[in-house]
């Protein structure tokens, strides 16, 4: 059994293909700009219910999904916009879903916390903490029995690692040797409760040992490091070598949800420190330092992303709400 802490391993060793690096940068920026806009929409009163932003955590969703094919399965979380964008959900369908519109990927029935887009393998985003893990195990079982070489990936937070579902799912995936990759986005807080207060281990990946599967902890704000460690796990899964638990240490710069300022249980200093570790700025510096993109290129990507996000939000705002006569569709 092995465990690595791969701090900033992105620099050096193997150089990833420029197209992949640019894709990862663009996707992370898309998530950031999209969520900033979503927050504005929420403040305007255009979004029903609860909205949980992943600002600061973009490298996890992107570094993981950069390894996946369209037919690989993903189960997301209540903090799932970034995961959805990284897995290929079109921005307009996602925005419309969050606004509760008929043109949303779930026709407005799911909302921000339950994004699904089966065409791109995003099966569901499970807003009951921990509950998604067994679903991913089942997707893995289905893959194994149907003998395809897909993989199933489950995202969840540090809080979920204390649920029974986490432990039951890891045990099942291990005994049945299923192609499942468990991605723990450890942003250190389950709403306001610090992981040290709630969790028996220093690194959540330590729990892999109890289930006899490989476990790793990685710097979740280093998209290249996330990409590489997940790539190995995906290879193992496709080769029939079973599941992996990967803990990505990261931080949500914003509050738990749009109603939480996020400062009652954290210091301003801590938040500022993590802002300096912004995964998007880090990759931007890497791209410039390695001569992959110029400032000018990056600014062009920035404007293109902003235009796409603007279009998506406009589409969502202008889309119709579901028709009242269809409220009882899709129950059975």
């Amino acid at each position, binding site marked *: 059994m092995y465990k690595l802490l791969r701090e900033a391993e992105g620099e050096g060793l193997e150089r990833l293909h420029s197209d992949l690096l640019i894709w990862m940068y663009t996707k992370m920026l898309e998530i950031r700009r999209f969520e900033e806009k979503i927050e504005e929409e929420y403040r305007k009163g255009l979004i029903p219910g609860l909205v949980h932003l992943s600002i600061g955590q973009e490298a996890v969703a992107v570094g993981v999904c950069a390894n996946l094919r369209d037919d690989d399965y993903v189960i997301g979380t209540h903090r799932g916009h970034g995961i959805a964008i990284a897995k290929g959900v079109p921005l307009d369908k996602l925005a419309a879903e969050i606004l509760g519109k008929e043109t949303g990927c*779930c026709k407005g029935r799911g909302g921000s916390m339950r994004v699904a887009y089966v065409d791109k393998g995003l099966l569901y985003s499970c807003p009951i903490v921990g*509950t998604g893990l*067994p679903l991913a195990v*089942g997707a893995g079982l289905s893959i194994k029995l149907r003998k395809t070489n897909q993989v199933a990936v489950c995202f969840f937070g540090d809080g979920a690692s204390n649920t029974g579902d986490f432990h039951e799912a890891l045990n099942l995936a291990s005994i049945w040797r299923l192609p499942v990759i468990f991605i723990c986005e450890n942003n250190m807080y389950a709403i306001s409760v610090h992981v040290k207060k709630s969790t028996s281990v220093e690194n959540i990946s330590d729990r892999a040992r109890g289930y006899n599967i490989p476990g790793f902890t990685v710097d979740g704000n280093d998209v290249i490091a996330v990409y590489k460690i997940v790539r190995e796990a995906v290879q193992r899964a496709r080769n029939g070598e079973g599941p992996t638990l990967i803990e990505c240490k990261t931080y949500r710069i914003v509050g738990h949800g749009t109603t939480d300022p996020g400062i009652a249980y954290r210091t301003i200093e801590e938040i500022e420190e993590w802002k300096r570790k912004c995964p998007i700025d880090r990759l931007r510096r890497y791209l410039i330092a390695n001569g992959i993109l110029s400032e000018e290129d990056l600014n062009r990507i920035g404007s293109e992303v902003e235009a796409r996000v603007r279009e998506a939000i406009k589409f969502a705002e202008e889309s119709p709400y579901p028709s009242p006569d269809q409220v009882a569709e899709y129950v059975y």
Partner: protein
Amino acid sequence: MYIRGCTMREITYVEALNEALREEMRRDERVIVMGEDVQLGYSGRGGLFLVTADLMREFGPERVRDTPISEEGFVGAAIGAAITGLKPVVEIMYADFLLCCMNQIVNVAAKLRYSTGGQLKVPIVIRTMIGQGRGVGSDHSQVPIAWFMNVPGLKVVAPSTPYDAKGLLKSAIRDESPIIFFESFLLYRTKGFVPTEEYIVPLGEADVKRKGTDLTIVAISTMVPCALSAAKKLKEEFNIDAEVIDPRTLVPLDKKTIINSVMKTNRLIIVESGVKTCGVGAEIASIVAEETFDYLDAPIKRVAAPHIPAPASPALEQLTIPSENDIIRAVREILQG
């Protein structure tokens, strides 16, 4: 029982369920069976009550899977498998253990299709057994049928005869919605006739188990044989002619058959072995009161378990399960009224 053109055989309720599983697994390779002790059990053949007997021998351990004691985990996994191309039939040993996976059943299975705007279907059957009647006590004897009727997105089935058990399980496996399928320990060894030929019983159709004119008895699951024997006695001893209806499927409920019967007999009794409060009977009584009140000549009566956890002692447990005499008493009360 005779169905024209069919050869009939007498088999037990357990054998009927076992045949349904075997036939559907042969018919559709996506069907898999999962649960505790389904491969071997005490007998080495499969299942503590032999419902999954010999399935592993025929279909192998990939399709007939023993699970850890991990209901939330393996029901969640079955749901995950159902939305990605398999048709899992999950066994939950006692209906009480449904509570160990209530989150996956209610928050996930029942909601996935709706919350994804119809993108997903969840073709999963969760078979379980009501353990009542064998002294296994408070947390092994509950009858939680009504709890699941309260959840949009779930279908709820509770057959009372071998014929219905086989035909409904086959329909349930072919259905594309999540289904909670209630079996009953007290029915497992009962015998009945089933055709040699293949047949199914559609979901959502009640069955008139006995025709009658004086009153309607709607009986659920374990209480159907009891209601039928009560009806026989009522006829013999009091010349009261009761119609006995088994809804067989509680969701979707065949209201029409019940309402038509009440419009004919003008009296209704509902018999269930679960707790009366907010039970199946409460729902059926409300429907009849709402939709056919003018036809009622007497108050609707519910015969059900008292508001007491199931005791282990046989001297006490029998007091918590409605008897033939309880039904007869209730019938005479409303006919005298």
